[in-house]
């Protein structure tokens, strides 16, 4: 089932390439495959038994047994969530691309390849196979930015690629070292070793390391961390993000921020937290500082931006910063205090909600930017507009909802996630959380500034004839907005499927 799911967009991409001459029909085929991907991801979601904390839909085939390499896939709550999110975001992006004549069949095919890479990453349970998909998703993303981006696309694409690549190299080296020490590439097995503390011992015994074994394991931990930190864009490893998001076409950015940025958080949850819990505790202080910096600094920086896409790019770093904070506090050493286990469960549930919620909100925001760019001939400066609410009331209203979802208004999807993260983070790291709330304030400041400058005030005569959303666009956006409301009012839709996965993480870390 999972193999089929990963193959689906890949085959879809090939078919779209083969039929590229047919133009719109090929693009329609691409959307059909994206719908199919979402349907299959949805089936997995419904099929997942929420009470079972372990991996489900597992497939395991030996590949290179001598090197411990196996084709091992499976999903738990986290995996299922990521699959649904990626499928949804990719579908949104393809639909958003429909009216963009520059985004021909080749573009759509690349997006489908990217989707295949995402599906593969989120289901693989063996490092080698996971790493292949992790890198595979980067290639279509690179070309999407490089070919269809804006003026500075070449530089941005190169920066994006190299930066992520550097992180990946660190990741690869670390896992090679781990493999040499443990002969294991399997995440599930490695997690058991990591949680029982055997990993450090094995490293010390088998690697002939002259220093202390703790130092070696910390070194490996930081290498793995670097890989995910770059992908998530944790401050200070985030500088590739604003220029990439701004230079990529908005439809591409939808996928980059909606789904690809979550690969990093996924790595934190699937790999870093289970395999290196002890090391995370040692590194708690710098980790918390980085999390807080990722929340606060980008929120301030966003206010200083003049370009809507850069503003929302910084906002994206800020939102993922909450995820990093949630993951970090969950690794906090607390002994066996059951109250603290509850807080950890809250923080981790919040992180999962935030992953999904930010995915759809950020994708929706960049969709709106795409719609705006198409109407303004590519202009997207904060000062370029004014009074749009009078000219395009429906557009402004719907984008306003997305903006308020982004600033965490209760009743919309952002709030339950942020509430749970803070609920968990505050008792575990009071100081860091108290500073982090500044991010919530600044988010309101810069988002409301956007509304004020773009939608309010006197109508900018340049745009007095801007067309409002067409009926098709309204119907395309309506489900997304409805989903924001639904998840805001009834987050149990997600948390109900996640609870045993979360409990598994919380009780799994026993020391």
């Amino acid at each position, binding site marked *: 089932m999972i193999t089929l799911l990963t193959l689906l967009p890949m085959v879809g991409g090939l078919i779209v390439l083969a039929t590229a001459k047919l133009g719109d029909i090929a693009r329609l085929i691409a959307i059909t495959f994206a719908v199919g991907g979402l349907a299959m991801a949805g089936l997995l979601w419904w099929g997942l038994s929420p009470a079972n904390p372990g991996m489900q839909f597992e497939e395991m085939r030996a590949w290179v047994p001598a090197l411990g390499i196996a084709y091992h896939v499976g999903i738990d709550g986290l995996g299922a969530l990521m699959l649904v999110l990626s499928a949804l975001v990719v579908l949104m992006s393809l639909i958003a691309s429909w009216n963009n004549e520059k985004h021909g069949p080749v573009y759509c095919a690349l997006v489908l390849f990217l989707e295949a890479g995402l599906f593969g990453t989120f289901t693989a349970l063996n490092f080698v196979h996971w790493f292949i998909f992790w890198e595979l998703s980067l290639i279509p993303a690179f070309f999407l930015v490089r070919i269809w981006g804006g003026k500075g696309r070449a530089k941005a694409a190169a920066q994006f690629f190299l930066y992520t*690549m550097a992180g990946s190299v660190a990741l690869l080296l670390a896992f*090679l070292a781990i493999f040499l020490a443990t002969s294991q590439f399997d995440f599930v097995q490695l997690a058991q070793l990591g949680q029982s503390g055997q990993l450090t011992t094995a490293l010390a015994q088998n690697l002939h390391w002259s220093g202390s074994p703790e130092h070696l394991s910390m070194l490996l931990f930081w290498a793995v961390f670097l890989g995910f930190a770059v992908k998530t864009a944790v401050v*200070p490893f985030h500088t590739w993000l604003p220029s990439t998001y701004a230079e990529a076409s908005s439809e591409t950015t939808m996928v980059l921020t909606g789904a690809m940025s979550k690969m990093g958080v996924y790595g934190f949850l699937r790999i870093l937290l289970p395999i290196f819990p002890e090391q995370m505790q040692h590194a708690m202080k710098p980790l918390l500082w980085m999390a807080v910096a990722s929340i606060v600094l980008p929120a301030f920086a966003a*206010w200083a931006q003049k370009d809507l896409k850069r503003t929302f790019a910084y906002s994206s770093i800020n939102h993922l910063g909450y995820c990093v904070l949630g993951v970090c506090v969950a690794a906090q050493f607390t002994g066996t205090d059951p109250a603290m286990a509850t807080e950890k469960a*809250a923080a981790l549930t919040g992180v999962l909600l935030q992953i999904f919620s930010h995915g759809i909100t950020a994708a929706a925001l960049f969709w709106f930017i795409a719609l705006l760019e198409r109407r303004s001939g590519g202009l997207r400066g904060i000062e370029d507009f004014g009074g749009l609410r009078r000219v395009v009331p429906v557009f402004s209203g719907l984008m306003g909802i997305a903006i308020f979802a982004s600033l965490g208004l*209760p009743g919309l999807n952002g709030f339950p996630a942020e509430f749970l993260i*803070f609920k968990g983070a505050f008792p575990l790291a009071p100081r860091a959380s108290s500073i982090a709330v500044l991010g919530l*304030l600044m988010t309101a400041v810069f988002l409301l500034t956007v509304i*004020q400058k773009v939608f309010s005030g*006197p109508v900018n005569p340049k745009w007095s004839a801007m067309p409002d959303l067409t009926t098709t666009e309204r119907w395309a956006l309506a489900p997304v907005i409805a989903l924001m409301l639904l998840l805001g009012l009834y987050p149990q839709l997600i948390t109900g499927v996640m609870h045993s996965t979360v409990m598994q993480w919380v009780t799994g870390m026993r020391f």
Partner: protein
Amino acid sequence: MTPWILQNLWLIPVLPMVAAGISALLKRRERGLSAGLAIGSMTISLLLSLKAFAEALAHPALQVKIVDWMQFGDQWVQLGWLLDPLAAVMLVMVSFVGLLIFIYSLGYMAHDDNFARFFCFLSLFAGAMLGVVIANSLLLLFMCWEVVGLTSYLLIGFWFHRPAAAAAAKKAFITTRVGDLGLLIGMVWLYSQSGTLIFYGYGNGCLEQRAVTAMATHATVAGMAVSTAIGLLIFCGAVGKSGQVPLHVWLPDAMEGPTPVSALIHAATMVAAGVYLVARVYPLMSGSALEVVAWVGAITALFAACIAVAQNDIKRILAYSTVSQLGYMMLGLGVGGVAVGMFHLITHAFFKALLFLGAGSVIHGCTEEQDIRNMGGLRKFLPVTFATYSAGMLALCGFPLFAGFWSKDAILHAARGWDVSMGPFYLGAIGALLTAFYMTRQMYYVFFGQKRTPAATVTPAAVAAHGAGHGVEPAVSPRPGEVCAVEDPHESPSVMTGPLAILAVFAVFLGFVGTPAWPWFQNFLNGRGVAWDWAGFSEPGLVSTMVVSSLIVFAGLLLGWWFYGRKPIVNATDEDALESLAPPVFHALGNRLYVDEFYGVTVIALTRFCAAFASWLDRWIFGGLVRLLAWTVTGVSWLDAGVDRFVVNGGFDEGCREVSRGGRLLSRLQNGRVQTYLSVIAAALVVLALWLLWGHRG
């Protein structure tokens, strides 16, 4: 057997919200349907609120309902609603005043393009506000509280094409959010301490004995009890929402919204939500937390009253008056308890809504004029408005026997008996003097003397206000210096004066439900019955406080008459009587004591600096380091290329071709960075791997 109304209490907030949801989907021209939905749902909510009130009368004991909302790990986040006298009183007040203001808006907003949207926002507001009232969980209360903030934002910025309105809306949202951050931290702290955010849950709630005792005995770092710290953090939220000093700055600016909004949200209900919040979490508020509440309230009461003296905009005077009265409510909560603060909240809601609606009627009648200097003599043209406004004004001043007299007197009496300090009492008493004074000043400017409107020149501000007026751009907008509308001011239609009359009745008589001799209101909140007993007046100090406060009111009225009534104000351009007496003081007050300017050069400047700094940090430090790394790598590639060129392929006779090849190599460095980088990274990888594996062997 749970009573029907408790089971279905959630309908009270949900109905208006559903109405808002439906009307959000309607087309803009469906004006009647939108208003009908809003008023219809509000009527049903009022009826249900009355039913709930009857239930609370019959069974004053607290009743709760708890539901599971979302799961995290093996726990559930719970939400719920409750019914007790406190909630019942608020329910009736909010839905009743709300309904009256909805009806009034039919007339006031009749010419607005966005009429349908207005009722949509109003309904959403009413629903969220009713949700705040019945919430049995701090989380649910917070959620509704934020939605209330959203609707306040939307309605302040309702005439969003006016830059002032857009700015005021943003300011309101952000200022209240500053307080809300405190509330959020307090909330998650409370959650971790008591394990629940449900207020009352059969002994397990966070406001119940067990949790409160545990928190009161558990000290934090500063030696402060946890409950005090949490109480103060929650109070931060109340400070923001209820416009207490130092977060009061948004409320006067919020007057950019349509007047019914000012009446409903920024006078009667939403701003009182902060007071209600403190009343709701009262069990958490320890003695030292209440001291802070009392002082903040007292300072706000006087501070805002001072500023109100020197304002010229009819709505801004009322706005500062609201801030001041909210200060009294906080003072009441701090020194006297829930019943004292809540009594003033309820009476104030009626008479302040009345005053705002009256001001709206005046503004409506004077073609969107808001500057009191340009009014005058209006009692002849707007008799109903004048009569009702007078009732509201006397109630606000605390004129004996009017509603405000009883409630404000209870606060002053409690402040006088406060064993911590007499300071708040004096602040409150001076505030009461100023209240009577500035209201008299306003009355003389607006309703007495000669009609000054035609003679007045139009100020730019008035033009802006006029142009935006009802959201319709006027065909010919008056320019500064031009003579204003020539027609006489006119009385408002009965759909507007009707609500005024009803509210006026309450402004006069509502106080009688809580007199010392018949303290029905106070006893109801405390779940006790009541009997008529003159002995209530014999409480020590009570009568003397009443006499003193009455004298203060008379003094204020007299002073007002002395400055503004003795000689009628003839020209709009005349100097204010106080201005000629003490110009610097008057100007400082007129400029709102420069609080906004102070924030501008401190907090806002600091924030701007931080934003620029964060952006700079990103570009030059974090980005710079990355660039440095990239240059290093490029340098290595250069070296590599050089070695290639001169060592490996070096040769004199190949010189000519070498030049072009060198050019190609160089251009490859420029264009093919990715591959170059990759090859270097791969090389580095191999070296590192080798070093890691064999470098340390032996």
